[in-house]
């Protein structure tokens, strides 16, 4: 039997298929989020199942997470992304004490008990400043790809100061910097620093090590280094950082599925 974790995030849908008994990852997949979220998730799931020669009778249990979790009818239950990231990261890196997750519209800092359960967490409010959405706006405005940002920022001699936290105001600020002739690498480095400072203002600098970085933004080159610099700590980026939420959901699904099997036997 397999368990399935579906993370319906704001920018991407991530799916992890897990062997329910060995907890071995069988497949992972990712697709861009769009208007028809549920269909998008189902298409991705069907593709992964087909590629791995799995059928619906192989499915033990499915859990959906992410902000779109309640729209995934294929799931047996839902769990928040906060719990899922904690479970996913603890499984991969069991000594983790703090998870920093920066996604498309959320940034959150989760502190863990030694058994991997959530001790406390902070999350941005309604504003998407300091998230992946912010980076996208900047990349678009500067005409660069997200993947180029790290390399470009690496060449920055004097990172610009970006003081606006609001994405809309920050864009205006960047237009002003461009008009003054500030070099794009300095702007990018400034934006990365601003995202990290925003995160530090949320956590209050009391991130207990080891700190693990997850979410789509962890894939953007240069972000890990910027975060480590601002926090003054070593940061480890999780393997497949976009997948930890879906992995956590799949692990929880496996746990629930096993409990169910036990109940059925007894």
């Amino acid at each position, binding site marked *: 039997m397999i368990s399935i974790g579906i993370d319906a995030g704001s920018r991407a849908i991530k799916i992890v298929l897990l062997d329910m008994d060995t907890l071995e990852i069988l497949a992972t997949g990712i697709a861009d989020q769009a208007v028809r979220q549920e269909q998008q998730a189902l298409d991705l799931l069907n593709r992964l199942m087909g590629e791995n020669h799995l059928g619906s009778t192989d499915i033990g249990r499915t859990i959906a997470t992410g902000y779109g979790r309640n729209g995934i009818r294929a799931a047996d239950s839902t*769990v928040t*992304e906060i719990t899922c990231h904690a479970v996913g990261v603890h499984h991969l890196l069991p000594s983790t004490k703090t998870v920093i997750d920066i996604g498309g519209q959320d940034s959150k800092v989760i502190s863990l008990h030694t058994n991997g359960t*959530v001790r*406390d967490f902070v999350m941005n409010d*309604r504003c998407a400043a300091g998230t992946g959405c912010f980076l996208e706006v900047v990349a678009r405005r500067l005409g660069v790809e997200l993947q180029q940002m790290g390399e470009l920022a690496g060449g920055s001699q004097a990172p610009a100061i970006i003081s606006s936290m609001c994405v809309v105001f920050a864009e205006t600020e960047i237009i002003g910097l461009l008009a003054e002739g500030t070099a794009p690498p300095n702007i990018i480095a400034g934006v990365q620093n601003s995202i990290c400072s925003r995160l530090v203002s949320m956590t209050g600098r009391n991130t207990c090590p080891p700190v693990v970085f997850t979410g789509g933004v962890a894939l953007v080159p240069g972000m890990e280094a910027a975060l480590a610099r601002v926090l003054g700590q070593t940061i480890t980026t999780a393997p497949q950082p976009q997948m930890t939420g879906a992995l956590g959901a799949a692990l929880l699904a496996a746990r629930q599925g096993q409990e169910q099997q036990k109940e059925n036997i007894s």
Partner: protein
Amino acid sequence: MCPLIKSTYGYHVRKTNPFLEMADLIVAETTCDGKKKMYELLGQTRPTYVLELPQKPNDPDAAGHWRRELVKLQAQLEKRFGVTITEEKLRGAIELMNRERRLRRELAALMQSDNPPLTGRQLLDFKSSISGIEADLQQYQKAIEIFKARLVGVVGAAGAAASQPVRVLLTGVPLVHGVERVLEIIESHGGLVVCQENCTGIKPILEDVECNGDPIQALADKYFKIPCSVMTGTTRRQENLLYLSRLYRAQCIIELTWQACLTYDVESYHIKKLSEEQLGLPYLQIETDYSPSDSARIATRIEALFESIRSQPCFRKTCPSCKP
């Protein structure tokens, strides 16, 4: 500016609050700077009288100053309305309001049960229906009897622990009529607000007004003891929270702060510390306003809080620390 002040002023401008429209005089108070300045604008077209609430309750001059504020209000009322406020009349009003407070406390106390007969949202609704009118008080008494009867019926019939709601102590800013959203989100995501330590909850009714002695002094004493967040140098709110969270066996503390409410926002530092270090309870602060745009995000945080509480082994068993 916080949404509560904007909303109060909005009612004033649009003349849509019947109580405000019926009032011959607005008796206002300095419980925050924003309201204090708002009353200046309100006072341009409505008769308004502002009481100055002392901000340092432990100062030796504070209590005397507050009593003098009430004496001046009495004189103002007598002059404005051509009446004499006698001690007998004051005592009558005190007794009536004490009775109302007792009824409200009695209803709130039903939430101490393992399986309360009503939700926090329903309890909050009762708050709005009461106004010191004899007929209302009688209705209130009936409601208590009905709920008490239900209480007897369900004790011991509690379902499986895993499906039981998480007991929440809600603290912070008041939830005035029409903005009960956060309470509703808590209770529709697996929580039960067993105690509301705020100005629309149990905070102002924890104590009665003394019936004997000088009634003005008794009134001054009672209201002076409410730990308004505008005050400084008092730990009475923390003491109340300590007492209430144990009495109501809260499993977490959720603090609501209206956006731009400076005093509650800063005070949340002490409440988080108290919650985690002294009470050993998870704490979550929600800062929001009257618009529903962040409801989904608030729900995620509340759900995550409840997931972490349910994942603790003591949630499923009868935890000794969860019992009084």
